[in-house]
C-alpha cells in the first residue's frame, strides 16, 4: 500500500468522521462510527483532492481504511 495515499485517506477519514484517535490501515469503519453522510463526505474529499472516484456503495461493503486506501491507489494508477 502506498503510504502517502494511505496518510491522505486517513486524514480525510479523521476529518469526515471527526475521529480523534489514530487511524491505521486496520482501523474499521465500525470503529469510526455509523453514518452514511460521513462516508459520503469522505468519498467527496477523496474525489476532490485526489481525483479518485470511489462510489459510496463500494465503500459501504469495505471493512477497513486500508482497503479504501488500496482502492483509491488503484483508481489513481
Amino acid at each position, binding site marked *: 500500500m502506498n503510504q502517502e495515499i494511505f496518510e491522505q485517506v486517513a486524514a480525510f477519514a479523521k476529518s469526515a468522521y471527526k475521529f480523534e484517535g489514530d487511524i491505521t490501515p486496520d482501523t474499521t469503519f465500525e470503529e469510526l462510527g455509523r453514518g*452514511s453522510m460521513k462516508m459520503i*463526505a469522505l468519498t467527496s474529499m477523496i*474525489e*476532490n483532492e485526489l*481525483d479518485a*472516484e470511489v462510489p459510496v*456503495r463500494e465503500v459501504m461493503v469495505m471493512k477497513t481504511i486500508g482497503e479504501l486506501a488500496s482502492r483509491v491507489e488503484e483508481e489513481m494508477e
Partner: protein
Amino acid sequence: MPSTRVTSPGLMEALRRRAAARPMRVAFPEGDDETMMRAVAELQADGLAQCVLVGDGAELARLAGERGLSLEGVEIIDIADEAENARCCERYLAHPDCRYKPKGAARRMTRPLERALILQVLGDVDVMFAGIANATGDIILAAQTIVGLAEGVATVSSCGIAEVPGWDGGEGGLIGFGDSAVCVDPTPGELASIACASCDTVAALTGWDVRCALLSHSTDGSMDNALVDKVRAARDIARAARPDLAIDGEFQFDAAVRADVAAKKVGRPSDVAGRANLLIWPDINVGNIAVKIIQNLTGADAYGPMLQGFKRIVCDCSRSAPVSEIVGNVVMSCVRAQALADALAREVR
C-alpha cells in the same frame, strides 16, 4: 384546510385533482426506459406534472418516435449538449450545496440520475423520480450525496398510506405507516426521525392533523425490556425535537387505533391513543410483515413507499412498476412537492 383534506374512498383521485391544480416540475432520468416514457407521456398529457426528461436528447427523441409516443410539452435536458452542461455546471459550482470541485461537478453533468438531482438542487425541478433502472440503494445514496438530508433528519426512511375497505378507524379508513422499506433496525434517534418525517409526509399529502403512534408489543409500560425501551426513547427524542407534532407511545396496535382499547390500557390523557392515523413500526421486520397482512387480509390498497428525509422530494419506484403505479407515485410526489414549496415560501416571508 378542510377543502384539501384527503379521506377514503378515492385517495388517488383526490391527489390527482390536487396535482393537476398546480403541476410541479418532475425530472425523469430514466426516460429511455419504455415504461417510464409511457408514464411521462401520460402525466404530461393529463396535465398532472410538467415533465422533464434527462438523458441523451437525440436518443430520447428516437425512442419516442419508435414507440409512437408524443412528448409534446415535455422538456428535454440533453446531457450531450456540452454548452448547456457547462452552463449548468457553473451554476452548480456556485451553489452552497455543491460538494465537488469543477472536475467532479463536470463529470456529473452527463450522468442522468445525478444531473436530475443537480437540477433539483438548482431549483429547476421540484421532484426527482427514478427507480425503474436504478436500484433503490443507489438512488438513496445519490440523493443523500447531492440533495442532502433535511435539517434535523437522522436517516432516510419511507412511509406509505393504506386505504382499508370497510374500516372506519384511522382517518376515515385511511392510515399512514412508516417505515416498512428503508431503515432496517433504527436506533432510538433514527426511529424518532422516522416518526417526525412521516408526520410531515402524511400531513403534506393529506392535510390531516396527524396523530402518530409509536407501536410496540407493550402499551405504556405493560412490558419491560430493551425493545420497549427503544420505542420509549424514540418517543422522548421525537417530542423534544418536534413539540409541534402529536407523537405518543409506546402503544400496541389495538391501543393505538381503537378508542375502547385505549380507554382500558392507556391510563392518562393522550391526543393519539385510540385515534392514531399514523403508525410507526419499531423495525423493518414488523413494518414489512404488517403492511402485507393489512393488504392481504383486508384487501387494502397500500400507496408508497415514499422516500422521505431529503431536502427535496426524491421518489423511487419498483423496478417492475407498471405505468399506472408510476403515475400514482409521481402524483403523490407532486402533492408533497406542492406542500414543500408552500413551506419554503412561508420561510422566505
